[in-house]
């Protein structure tokens, strides 16, 4: 099926979200829509999926104009969509979720009706009758086998990892005979491993003749999987490029200026130990140990990158370091044991904390930008004297920070929840970095951000380091670990399986992250063993051997 968008224009008030966009999707192709947050990618896809009506332009399927006024029209035109935030019922099973809205039904001895807009060989018309669970399961199983979408049809969605939930969404679309799939930022929530699985599935779908519109702002992913790349900036198509285009060119097209993909930083000059964590354990949700007696030091003026696949205890480690979870072991900050201190006291002791989930933990969406900028310093001078707050001081500080950190907002009174992801993160970063800290703890600091914002956040973090702050970065993005770290610790199943220098080869680091390093690190003994080398030891490691260094482009082509 060939899909064509011609001159699609959509305005919201004075804002032109889509400005005469043309896009052609050939059958059996993966088209990537690349653009920053707020460039209009999602709006365009919402137009295609019938969630938004365009002001101008038309949609053609197989060169025939179609009118898509609702998702139902889109589905019957063969368009399926997997949203960034999944639309699943957590307490239903996979089979129930997949068939929701088009449930296969068994009637009492009556012949089955085969009418209606949702008719397809695998589905029946939704009408009263008994739910045919067996057929629902069978159709899920059939699809998962055909496309390698491994899913247990009887599993409850709430028990499934995010990557599998996404597969459920894809099956949902396929069951409705979608021949064009829209994937809206599908990798934003996935681990590197899950992303690879997804790409494999996307490849299989392409080979079966289906087309895919892949929305993303991650250059490498787009280069890796797309057949052609359409770059959108400020609502306009600015370029169409083949996947062989370089990172730098794509980034420049996306942002509208040349972007530094890798923040430039000088060699670290670590000073005394600021944070000493020893024999630190954190119980997880179900009583198991999410973090198992780990120990590490961080020195002033260095960045320790904690690498690892999501879900290996990093989240629990960060929360426990902030006192948000119970833990055992000792945390010594600048000579003082803070392992029994409250979160408030730890913040006051000089820790800046960028939480992993900014919308849930880092910000209050309904509060103004100004209130969010003082969220964890609201009771300190100059913002408060005794119990009375000083609105003028809050406002003044907010105006200053918004300016300094370039938060794009119409006013400091705007609700933070209405800002784009990058600007929300800038609010968190501005709040946490603007006070004098001893330690900076940042968890997934650039997740879901576009290239321009990543550049900004990274350079701010490096600035902190250069000011003599001890920095801990937790990230599941290898790029980020490489770009920032002066020293890398790898977490696997709640343990630190090895320390290495940022010159380590990507493959070797990948192995460590996959757990294979647990033994390998010990064999290497001298520089990466679990005997907790200090920063000095690490820095003694000689520079990278040429065969270890791997250009990013090669990685992308895999």
């Amino acid at each position, binding site marked *: 099926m060939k899909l064509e968008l011609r001159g699609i224009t959509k305005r*919201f008030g004075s804002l032109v979200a889509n400005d005469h966009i043309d896009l052609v999707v050939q059958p059996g192709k993966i088209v990537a829509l690349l653009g920053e947050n707020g460039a*209009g990618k*999602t709006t365009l896809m919402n137009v295609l999926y019938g969630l938004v009506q365009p002001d101008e332009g038309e949609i053609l399927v197989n060169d025939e104009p179609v009118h898509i006024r609702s998702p139902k029209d889109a589905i019957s035109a063969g368009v399926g969509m997997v949203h960034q935030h999944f639309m699943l019922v957590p307490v239903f099973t996979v089979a129930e979720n997949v068939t929701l809205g088009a449930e296969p039904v068994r009637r009492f001895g009556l012949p089955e009706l085969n009418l209606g807009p949702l008719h397809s060989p695998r589905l029946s018309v939704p009408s009263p009758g008994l739910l045919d669970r067996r057929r629902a399961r069978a159709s899920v199983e059939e699809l998962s086998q055909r496309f390698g979408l491994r899913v247990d049809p009887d599993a409850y969605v709430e028990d499934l990892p995010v990557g599998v939930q996404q597969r459920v969404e894809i099956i949902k679309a396929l069951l409705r005979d979608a021949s064009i799939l829209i994937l809206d930022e599908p990798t934003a929530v996935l681990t590197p491993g899950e992303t690879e699985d997804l790409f494999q599935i996307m490849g299989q779908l392409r080979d079966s003749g289906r087309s895919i519109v892949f929305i993303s702002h991650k250059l490498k992913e787009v280069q890796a999987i797309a057949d052609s790349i359409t770059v959108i900036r400020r609502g306009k198509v600015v370029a169409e490029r083949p996947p062989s285009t370089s990172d730098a060119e794509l980034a420049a097209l996306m942002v509208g200026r040349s972007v530094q993909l890798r923040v430039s930083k000088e060699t670290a000059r670590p000073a005394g130990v600021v944070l000493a964590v020893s024999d630190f354990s954190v119980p997880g949700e179900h009583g198991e140990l999410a973090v198992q007696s780990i120990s590490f030091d961080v020195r002033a003026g260095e960045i320790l990158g904690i690498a690892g696949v999501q879900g290996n205890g990093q989240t629990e480690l960060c929360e426990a370091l902030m006192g948000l979870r119970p833990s055992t072991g000792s945390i010594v900050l600048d000579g003082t044991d803070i392992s029994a201190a409250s979160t408030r006291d730890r*913040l006051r002791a000089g820790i800046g904390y960028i939480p992993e989930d900014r919308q849930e933990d880092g910000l209050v969406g309904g509060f103004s930008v100004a209130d969010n900028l003082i969220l964890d310093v609201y009771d300190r001078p100059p913002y408060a004297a005794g*119990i009375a707050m000083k609105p003028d001081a809050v406002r003044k500080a907010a105006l200053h920070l918004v300016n300094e950190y370039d938060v794009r907002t*119409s*006013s400091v009174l705007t609700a933070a929840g209405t800002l784009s992801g990058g600007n929300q993160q800038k609010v968190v970063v501005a709040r946490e970095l603007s006070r004098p800290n001893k330690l900076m703890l940042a968890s997934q600091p650039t997740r879901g951000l576009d290239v321009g914002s990543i550049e900004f956040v990274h350079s701010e973090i490096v600035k902190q380091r250069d000011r003599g702050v001890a920095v801990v970065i937790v990230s599941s993005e290898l790029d980020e670990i490489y770009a920032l770290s002066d020293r890398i610790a790898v977490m696997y199943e709640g343990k630190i399986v090895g320390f290495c220098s940022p010159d380590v080869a990507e493959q070797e680091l990948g192995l460590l992250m996959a757990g294979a390093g647990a033994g390998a690190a010990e064999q290497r003994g001298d520089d990466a063993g679990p005997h907790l080398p200090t920063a000095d030891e690490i820095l003694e490691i000689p520079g990278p051997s040429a065969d270890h260094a791997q250009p990013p482009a090669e990685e992308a082509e895999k």
Partner: protein
Amino acid sequence: MSDIPVAGPEPAPAAPGTPATPATEAGGPAETPGPATSRSRLTGAVLIQAITHGSSTVITILAIFLALVVGGVLIVFSDPVVTRAWSSFFANPGYALAQTWDAVSFAYSQMFEGAILNPATISAAAHGGSIAAIFYPLSSTCAQATPLILTGLSVAIAFRAGLFNIGAAGQWVGGAIVATWLGFGLSLPPVIHIIVCVLGAFVGGAVIGWFVGLLKAKTGAHEVIVTIMLNYVMYDLLQYLLSHQSMLQQPHQTNQVAPFIADNANLGHVGGPPPQAGVGFLIAVAAALGVAWLLSRTTTGFQFRTVGASPSAARTAGIKVERSWILVMLLAGGLAGLSAATVIQGTGTQLTFNSYGTYGPDGITVALLGRAKPLGVVLAGLLFGALHVGGTFVEAATLGQVPADIVQVLEGLIVLFVAAPALIRAVFRLRATAGTGMEAAAKGWNG
């Protein structure tokens, strides 16, 4: 960022600096949360936009209007003369319409005269009558509104911290028991006795509220269930105390009533003797101002609002969420206790087994109608007070033809319409705006 496709006209292109929010913010009620709120943005254009987009205030006013219209229909149905006129509508449509207009306008004008202002008293005053009589209706309305404002504040303050206080009734009883006991059990000089009783009522309610907060903080018990159950405990405790001479029962009585409190403990009059407003109304207004100040201008209020908006973000920011729950429930209970003080000490009545009436549930309605904001609660309390006074007045004026119960229907309708902004927008063809406060109210049930 969150591109959840709601089929509304606001799919959030999330461009930096999307306009629209400041307009609705500034167009909302004067009392906006947040310490850094500008008050100078309310230009004419913004106001018009706020009205056409249907801000929450506009929705509330239209909801009241719509409720009055539906109430008018009920008045028509309850009047045999009008229904007879309608049965011969085709023979004489003018007569039917005139009768309808007469019945409805009479009922509502009586309600207005009873609750707010009676023009007759003005002309009477001009001819040498009593000037005080002019203010009699308003004064009665304030008196009726007093306990409702306080229980409304009790529900509202808890709500701002994310808790649904269904227990204002039980906390009211707690306050009433202490106020009564101190009122007749002690013998103190005039002003001091009042202060001791009022503070005692606050403490009596606060203890009950504190207990709820404590249970939630320590065990995770949901406050809705705990408060509902505690209401029953308190009702039964009251009955028990009032059935024993050694406890609270009036001597030589078989009925479940407490003794009258000492004269020294009675709150003074402001407008005139009950049913006119007394010092209790001043307490309610002061409490509203206090809550407004606490919520918008103090670190404690900032904590409450943060905990209410996002407990996880509050925790991450180092705010002790559990402590906020306990403290806010303590204050909520105290406010409900104050409500009891204004009734027990302000109206010259004895505490009986059903004195708590519907102050608790009405407090929930008042808080919802007032959008959990102190000023809104005062206005909503006054509206309900006026409806109560007007209802009684209209029943007397129509010789029972229009029952006083009509105001309960009106109250119910107002809340129903306010809670369904989509309905109001559809009826009045307003364009939708994002987030009208009631959606937040609905979310509050998740704790």
